[in-house]
């Protein structure tokens, strides 16, 4: 019940004034003043997004543009830091990958989109300065590295997103999941990707800083669109089984343990060429010592981050890394890491909540079916 006061040292996004005007409850998050919820509340915001469309301010995330220096190859350079297949990205394609460290741990996870001329990265807010330094340290010879931290970034998510945004930029209707395109919205040059962090269909819209609020208001003028804060963003991504950096993945977890092998390029799984490649390649071959799994507790008790995961006879075999209430599931859900021998779907486990074991079962993720639009 502690109340946090937003401090003057915190940064603001281009939508700060709008958040306040809309009655957003502002909290400090990753160095920014951000809305955790609006007056509708987290439950309503979550359910509205799954039913119609939610508008999220994600301008706090880091946008970085990479451009090859003459005679260099930007994708090949970036592949030295990430296990994803970047050289295979065609113009307009987008991919999820991770910056890894020498131990195969994850420094950050990110989205990479090729425009043909550039690579556009979207990285986590809390990591963006470190990511920038990391890229500069390793790739300055090959790349022009431009942080675009002042730009706006919004996510429009939900089944109505395509029709809402399509009214302002018709071409976005035909874009497939994980593609991007330059699009004019209300006379502002934006970069739109069909992507998101909710498991729903939708877009992320990168805008010039001075056009962000105008475009947000334009989208909110559609009655199907409601503003959504960080609270529902978290419950939506958790239902979608998506990792939150600093919680479900960090420098001590490998992409293999995290169940992210799908994001590692096929060739790169044998050839390597990224930090920690030996460890990651060995884990792919032999299986990791532990795995990230989805968990459904019985009843309605919520097992939150840090909860011990035990076998039915009480041996602790892991920890919850994200846990909460799933409004669309109408029940509790969690994810966490367990010893590999207890990671199979259907395994009966116990979550130790307030000293008492709550029966739970390992379930496949996502918890709520993805509804991406693949064309």
């Amino acid at each position, binding site marked *: 019940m502690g109340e946090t006061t937003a401090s003057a040292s915190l940064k603001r996004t281009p939508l700060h004034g709008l958040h306040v005007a809309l009655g957003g409850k502002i909290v400090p998050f990753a160095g920014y003043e951000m809305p955790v919820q609006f007056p509708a*509340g987290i*439950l309503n915001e979550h359910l509205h997004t799954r039913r119609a469309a939610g508008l999220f301010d994600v301008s706090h995330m880091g946008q970085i543009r990479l451009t090859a220096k003459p005679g260099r190859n930007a994708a090949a350079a970036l592949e030295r830091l990430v296990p994803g297949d970047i050289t295979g990205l065609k113009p307009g394609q987008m991919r999820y990958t991770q910056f890894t460290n020498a131990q195969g741990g994850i420094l950050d996870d990110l989205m990479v989109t090729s425009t043909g001329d550039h690579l556009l990265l979207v990285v986590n807010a809390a990591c963006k300065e470190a990511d920038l330094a990391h890229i500069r340290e390793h790739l300055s010879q090959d790349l022009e590295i431009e942080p675009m931290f002042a730009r706006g970034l919004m996510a429009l998510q939900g089944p109505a997103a395509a029709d809402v945004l399509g009214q302002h930029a018709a071409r976005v209707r035909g874009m497939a999941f994980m593609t991007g395109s330059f699009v004019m919205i209300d006379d502002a040059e934006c970069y739109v990707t069909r992507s998101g962090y909710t498991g729903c269909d939708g877009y992320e819209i990168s805008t010039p800083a001075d056009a962000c609020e105008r475009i947000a208001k334009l989208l909110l003028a559609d009655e199907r669109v409601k503003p959504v804060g960080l609270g529902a963003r978290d419950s939506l991504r958790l239902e979608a089984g998506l990792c939150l950096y600093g919680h479900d993945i960090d420098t001590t977890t490998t992409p293999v343990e995290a169940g992210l092998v799908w994001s590692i390029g096929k060739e790169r799984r044998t050839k390597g060429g990224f930090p920690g490649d030996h460890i990651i390649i060995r884990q792919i071959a032999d299986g990791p010592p532990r795995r990230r799994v989805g968990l459904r507790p019985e009843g309605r008790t919520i097992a939150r981050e840090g909860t011990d995961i035990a076998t039915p006879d009480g041996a602790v075999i892991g920890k919850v890394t994200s846990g909460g209430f799933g409004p669309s599931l109408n029940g509790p859900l969690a994810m966490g890491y367990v010893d590999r021998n207890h990671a199979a779907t259907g395994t009966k486990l116990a979550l130790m909540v307030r000293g008492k074991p709550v029966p739970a079962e390992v379930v496949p993720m996502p918890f709520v079916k993805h509804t991406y639009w693949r064309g």
Partner: protein
Amino acid sequence: MAKVKYTEEHEWISVDNGVGTVGITDYAQEQLGDVVFVEVPEVGRTIARGEAVAVVESVKAASDIYAPVSGEVVEANGTLADAPGNVNLEPMGNGWFFKVRLSNPGELDGLMDEARYEAFVKSLG
């Protein structure tokens, strides 16, 4: 006529014939956000003033509910299992948590009346 008293932990207790009904205040439910689960104490349990006796889970966090007085739990609000949202809708009505038979009614004197509680909430900003 039942008298209502308040704690600094934002619980209320309404006492009638030696039995107090306990819940959380409107300020508390507002701070918690959408309540999705309430763990109420078992009937028959003896509780001491200040003891954590119930848990309220919102979409944001779990919070302990502390016994505002000592006594024996005589009833728990079973309807919250299916309708935890009542804590948000009617925190001082259908959203009550449990009833306690007071073993030391004098403890009520240490709690705030409505005017003092309102001033206390205001002081929190």
